[in-house]
Every structure is written in structure tokens, then in C-alpha cells.
């Protein structure tokens, strides 16, 4: 029988790596969020944002950040479902708000961990 605590100890170590990568991913999201509003940069920015959100959605809850994973999945799904004909101000504004929320919750996740030396 596998000891569940053994998995938890292993995942705790991976959580630190996840948070380190999350920091870089949030930087990328911050770089792209304003470009979503610019028509000539929108497609590239959405693609970058979706790629980062997709990765966060796939791992966040496994290492204990369920809410972060949930909002990342919302961003991923919103961009996936959006066709180019839906590039209206309202939809773009909604996605920017979701990305904002993702960044906010991501920052909270990073701050929730005690600093390591």
C-alpha cells in the first residue's frame, strides 16, 4: 500500500519549483495583458497568454493551488473558444479582467509561501 504522505512530501518539493516558474509566467502575463487591447498585437498576445494559462491550469491544483488552477482554466478556455470575429471590446475587456484576476491570485500564491534562504 502506498503511503499518501510520501506523495505529499514529494509534491511539496515540486510546489517550490512550480512557484518559481509561476513567477516567470506572471511576468509574461503582465507583459502581454496590455497588448491584448492592441489590434495588431492581439493575436500574438492572446496566444502567449493562453499558453501560460494552460500550463498553470494543468498543474496548480496538483500542488495545492486549486483556485489559481480554476481561474487559469477559465482564461485558457475563454481564449480557446473565442474566434477572431469575437474580437469586440466587451470580450477583450472580459479576458483582460480574467487575466488580471489570474495575476492577482498568482501573486497571492507566491506570497503565501515562506521565503527560502
Amino acid at each position: 500500500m502506498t503511503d499518501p504522505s510520501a506523495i505529499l512530501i514529494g509534491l511539496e518539493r515540486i510546489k517550490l519549483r512550480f512557484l518559481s516558474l509561476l513567477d516567470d509566467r506572471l511576468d509574461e502575463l503582465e507583459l502581454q495583458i496590455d497588448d491584448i487591447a492592441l489590434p495588431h498585437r492581439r493575436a500574438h498576445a492572446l496566444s502567449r497568454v493562453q499558453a501560460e494559462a494552460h500550463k498553470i491550469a494543468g498543474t496548480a491544483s496538483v500542488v495545492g493551488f486549486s483556485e489559481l488552477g480554476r481561474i487559469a482554466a477559465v482564461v485558457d478556455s475563454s481564449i480557446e473558444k473565442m474566434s477572431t470575429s469575437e474580437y469586440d471590446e466587451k470580450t477583450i475587456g472580459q479576458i483582460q479582467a480574467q487575466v488580471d484576476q489570474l495575476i492577482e491570485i498568482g501573486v497571492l500564491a507566491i506570497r503565501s509561501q515562506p521565503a527560502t534562504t
Partner: protein
Amino acid sequence: MRILAVDDDPVILDILGEVLGTFGYSDITFASSGHEGLAILQDDQLGFDTLLFDIQMPGMDGITLTKLTRQIYRYRDVPILMLTVMSDKIYIDRAFQAGATDYVTKPFETYELRSRMSTANRVAEGQKKLNDLAKSLRDIGQQERHITLEDAHSVQDIDCMIPLPAFHNYLKQLGRGSLFSSSLIAFKIENIQRLNDSMTDFEYICALTDTADAITSALPFGQFLMAHGGNGTFICVAEGVSSDLLEPLPTDIAHAIEEIDPCYGDGRPLMLSVLVGEPIPLRFRGRDSINRAITDAVSRVEREPLAVASFGEKKQKMPSIRMSAAR
């Protein structure tokens, strides 16, 4: 057990290494892209027992990797588990069409992953035995029979045909919304017991392949998957099934078999008919609803088929479909 895990996210590879290691799977090779994964599969001498592929990767995605992996003979039956965030039906369809054995949606539960791996490997073992047997049948004595009628022998090299266990996994993976727009249709080779008694194993496999080829080429649905369920019965899941589309289906299947022009290995024509069952709309009605729907579809095609695919001189009921010689 040797495992290859391919994902461009290093955190996922870390998690897999940790979780699978805890479950006793210690021989794991990691690749961070589809191209790297394929190169490992092509160069490795020992062979892997289970493959875990992410779908969305830059460059070569997991679906392309699955297709290319299935073209490597050694990996025709090895379980491929897709680990992915993509839960939309279109991705699930593409993954199973490409040859995936199962589909695990990220973020996954660690114990669920272990359970899926165990099941996939158990099923793959059975499948491999049947396929090895089919391969050896070309060489051994013609009269020896090893395949029973009940075996859900998978049909190879026909688009949209997948093994029965993968078919079950596919249905389990579809969400409630997708199931509501899908239906099951069963097809059955009429008098399969009598026909099977008159054939060698190799001829029987050819008959299954030809029948599957005819049915899949006649099906008018944009999206479908089909499996052989044993006893010469085929189960198909399709979207957008309507009576308008079903009406010409028996004739189209008959024409497709006529084009294949099948016969026994010694050239004798083989008379057979394909029964077309009534479609069963899929619904979520409790835990075992999918299994019950499959049983219902199979039982209906056996008891009260909607139509019989027929062509040739005896157009009314019994067709004169001949089965092709060795392929």
C-alpha cells in the same frame, strides 16, 4: 515497467516522476517535446511499456506524436495515455482517432492516474496477445482455430476503428453535453456463427476487416468512432444521427462491400449480410448508463435489426457479398 512521459511543462514531468515513483514505477524516461519523444521511441532498443503524452505542445503536438508512434510496429498496442488540460470533445475525438488508449484530464488525481495506468496495461496485454495471434495465423496451419467468436478482436488499419477498451474509455470521457448529441448504432454480420465455422482464423479476421472497412466508408456522419465488440458485432458512436442519414445506409454498406469484393482464401465467394441496428441515443442515467446503452444497442441489432445491408442478385434480404482473399 518502462515508461516514457512527454510534456513541455517541467512541472508536469516532475509531478509524474514523483507520483509514479511513489507508486513503484521507477524506470521513467522524460522528454520535453514531441520531436524528442519520437526520437527516443525510434532509437530506444528495449522498448517502453506505457507512454504518457501531453496534447498541447509547441512544434509536434501529442496527437501527431500518437499517430506517428502507432506507425512504429513495436508500439501498435502499447498503452498511450493522453494527459491534458484540453477537455473539449474535439480534442478527445482527435486523440482517440489517433490511437490513444485513454485520456486523463489535467489536473489529475494521483490515485486516478495509477488506476488508469494499471487498467491500460492490463487491457494492452490482452490486445497484444490477440494481435500477435492474428499475425502468426498467416504462418501456421490453416485449420487450427485460436480466435473465439466472442473475442473482441480489434480491427487494424481502418480509419475511425479503435479497440473496444479504448471505445469504452472514449465514451466515459465525453461530457454530459457531448453524450446528449451522440447515439450508438450496432452492426452485425448475420449468421456469424455459421460463417465463422466455415472459415480459418485468418479468413475470419479478413472478414471483420472488410466489413469494418465497408461500414466506416458508408457512414455519413461527420464524426464517429467504431469498435468490434466480438461475435461479429460492431458498435459505433456518432454525432448528429438522423433518420434521413440512416435511410440509405444499408444500401451504401452493401455497395461498399461489393466494391471490396470479398471471398474465401481459396477464391470461393462468401455470402454474408450486415444487420443495421436501431440508433440508441446516449444519455446520462446513472453510473452504468454507457454499458447499458452498449448492451441495448447490441441486443437490438440481434433481435430486431432495422435493416439488412444487401446487394447483388438477391437484393431483398440475403445479399451475395463475397469476402476478399488474403490481403
